[in-house]
């Protein structure tokens, strides 16, 4: 059985890719279709999909349209926007960033880039 985290990601992937509102049954069917390709996931129960959907709704990733029966779910924001938000945080432009994200290389000034380029010429090229 896939973990909750993996299920959340699979459901968000479907919602992001279709870009439209889906019911829990639609989602289950589409996920089942995917799993027949990969043959890794067992048949999902609709209740499991509903559980994951309400978790995603609580986290603010999914909105629910209660005007229909069954309820329709859609992604609140596109994948691209979420990625942009994430990278904004990582690249240090979010002003209130507290979390010490230790990046491999932080922001480099143009002057330092110049110095680094000169240093690169002195490094012997090795093949690992």
């Amino acid at each position, binding site marked *: 059985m896939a973990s909750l*985290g993996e299920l*959340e*990601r699979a459901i*968000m992937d479907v919602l992001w890719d279709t870009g439209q509102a889906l019911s829990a049954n639609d989602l289950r069917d589409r996920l089942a279709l995917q799993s027949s390709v990969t043959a890794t996931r067992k048949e999902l129960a609709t209740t499991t999909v509903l559980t994951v959907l309400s978790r995603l709704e609580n*986290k603010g*990733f999914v909105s629910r349209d209660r005007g229909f029966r069954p309820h329709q779910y859609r992604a609140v924001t596109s*994948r691209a926007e*979420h*990625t*942009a*938000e*994430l*990278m*904004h*945080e*990582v*690249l*240090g*432009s979010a002003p209130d*960033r*507290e*979390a*010490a*994200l*230790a*990046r*491999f*290389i*932080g*922001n*480099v*000034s*143009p002057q*330092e*880039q110049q*110095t*680094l*380029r000169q*240093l*690169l010429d*002195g*490094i*012997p*090229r*090795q*093949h*690992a």
Partner: protein
Amino acid sequence: MLHAAVVLALLTLALAWPVPILLARAQWTARAPGTALALWQSIALAGGLSMIGALLTYGLIPFGTNLARGLAALARATIDQRLPPRAGVEHVFALCCAVILGTHLLLNLIATVIRSERQRRRHLTLVELLSQPYPEHAGTRVIDHAAPVAYCLPGATRSITVLSAGMLDLLAPGELRAVIAHEKAHLRQQHHTVLLAFKSWHSALPWFPIANRAETAVALLVEMLADDQARRVVDDGTLARAIVLVGTAGEPGTATDALGPLDAPPHPADMVTPRVRRLTGGQPPLPLPARAAVLTAATALLAVPTALLLLL
């Protein structure tokens, strides 16, 4: 008590100004980053201890001959609502300052930890939804973005290393192994706790020029420590190439530009060049006796204010 207060005040001044300036300028730190990091921590702790200690011992002079008696007399005076006859405004003022400063530092640390933990959790949720596991390395995930980025997210139960698609594109396999080893070293050595402590110290004392310098120096030392772990996996040249390639990739007009205006101020100090120089320059590590001497100094630095407070 007066002697102790004077010595603590002098120690505070020394640790607030000349000592950190000298250490931030020192060249040997790149040859012994772990030792230098221990010294920075000792300076910060001893500095805070002496500052509060100096105010406390001075304020308690009219109350008793040592810290314990003074505090007991202060408690009694508070309950009886009667100050001893020798206690003047200056003593009460010093005591208030000690309490305010101590509370301020402590509350700031707590607030920083809580805020960062909340941001880290939200970030982790987003990363897990947006990234794919990287099959060759456990605990490593790939996010689909063009800017070459690698970072780690420490967690209480599980920590992850995040690579961007741009990073996989940019680097050769050996260089990528170096990057991953570097990030895993941050996680294993719990560097985020040290960074968080210095960040909190800096935000608690923004008018304190040294706090900024200390935070920058510590951030660089932590990177060097992680580099040293990566050197166990790949040769120095490969790691240096990886650092330079990533450092020069973010030219204006390329990947990072796609994110819109990045108004983050660049680091005032060069944070990458020193890392490359120590890999290419063939600097030997600091000899053992020198490192032992620095560690002894770091211990003594902490022992002096502690002894002054407890033994006098």
